[in-house]
């Protein structure tokens, strides 16, 4: 009997606390304080686990993947050479584009300052695609700023602390990006499909000429969340439903979202 009472009491206490938690969540300020308090509590444990686990992890990863590391190094050297060549070729085009953009008063990413940051942690959950970086408000990073890495847009700053920030990746299910392609006459909205699933665009009019391989870049429309010209994704599959007046796109992000170590935060604020 007493056991039943204890059990019921525990259940009711749990339910009451759950309600309190949800209420706290809806009041942003309290949540922010709670978050820093929780970080303070967990940090010593995280640090200890990290200090113990990292060398062991590196040892095994190095021992098991040595061949892969060498192959990857060779591939990266080759890609670096290619990129340098391409960079030299594109320099003149970039200058032209910058001049045109300035004349049209459209922000161009090539002319915007950036802050380099290192990725500290990946999203701890399956339900959100985020990363934490080691630069924050003290380095001029603000919420909403675009983040690029690995050759394309990877996301935008979701929240900041004095020396850190959380970046929502473009693959997050709540991420929506306005993009354009070709001559920039058509605008599309891309949405994230979750941590492992990349991006998609639905209900594209049949009049839009898109084929696999087409590069999509941010449209930079007034009031948009990103400046113009940031490469976002390439079309990997065009799906036409029989009888439908629209088609759907499966897209591969231009940046490799699975292996992000360093990022550049573009110091550009979305207009309100």
């Amino acid at each position: 009997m007493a056991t039943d009472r204890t059990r019921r009491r525990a259940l009711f206490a749990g339910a009451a606390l759950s309600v309190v938690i949800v209420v706290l969540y809806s009041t942003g300020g309290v949540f922010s304080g709670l978050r820093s308090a929780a970080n303070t509590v967990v940090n010593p444990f995280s640090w200890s686990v990290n200090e113990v686990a990292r060398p062991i992890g590196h040892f095994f990863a190095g021992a098991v993947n040595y061949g892969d590391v060498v192959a990857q190094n060779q591939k990266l050297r080759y890609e670096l050479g290619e990129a340098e060549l391409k960079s030299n070729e594109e320099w003149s085009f970039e200058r032209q584009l910058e001049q045109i953009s300035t004349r049209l008063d459209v922000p161009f990413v090539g002319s915007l300052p950036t802050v380099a940051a290192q990725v500290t942690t990946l999203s701890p959950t399956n339900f959100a695609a985020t990363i934490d970086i080691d630069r924050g408000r003290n380095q001029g990073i603000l919420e909403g700023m675009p983040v690029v890495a690995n050759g394309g847009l990877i996301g935008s700053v979701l929240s900041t602390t004095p020396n850190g920030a959380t970046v929502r990746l473009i693959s997050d299910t709540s991420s929506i990006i306005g993009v354009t392609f070709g001559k920039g006459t058509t605008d599309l909205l891309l949405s994230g499909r979750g941590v492992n699933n990349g991006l998609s665009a639905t209900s594209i009019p049949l009049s839009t000429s898109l084929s696999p391989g087409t590069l999509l870049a941010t449209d930079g429309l007034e009031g948009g969340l990103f400046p113009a010209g940031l490469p976002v994704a390439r079309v990997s599959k065009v799906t036409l439903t029989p009888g439908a007046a629209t088609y759907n796109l499966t897209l591969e992000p231009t940046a490799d979202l699975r292996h992000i170590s360093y990022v550049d935060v573009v110091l550009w604020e979305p207009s309100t």
Partner: protein
Amino acid sequence: MRRTIVPATILTLLIVAIQLEILSSLRFAGVVVMLVWLWPVAMGLAGYTGLAMWVALVGGVLFDTHATTPFGLTAIVAMIFAYGASLLGREGVGDLDSAAIWVTPSLATIAGFFAPLVYTFGGVFVFNFELWRGSLGAMMLVNAVAFFVLARPVTRLARTVGSVGERVRR
């Protein structure tokens, strides 16, 4: 329970740290194994209702403060499964010694399979309708397999922690 709450809390902090520092990077098929859910389930299967609810709450809340998902949802899901597991644990269903060897892992597998689903549905109650768009199937399968593998050692650990108070009483 009062005597066991300190070691259980410290161990929960350690488990949250392992979850954040190791398991968030060590993904299987791109999926994070949710040790913060398995720990309270194991504590429940060991028969400690109050302790299971406590570690579910502490672990869940601390984990949620590090994620951008709805705050408190991980804790609530953990508490639901901890309570369910403790009902079975109290009856000795998940007992490591008397029950068949596959019982505890099987019960944990059920929890691991359904926890991401309950979490996704829970998102609706905090007005987050985007959670279902992730790889829900993969999450359910990977967590079910991981819970099956880890159930016995984690339940043994839970039983050790829970029995601290009993030993002191004796």
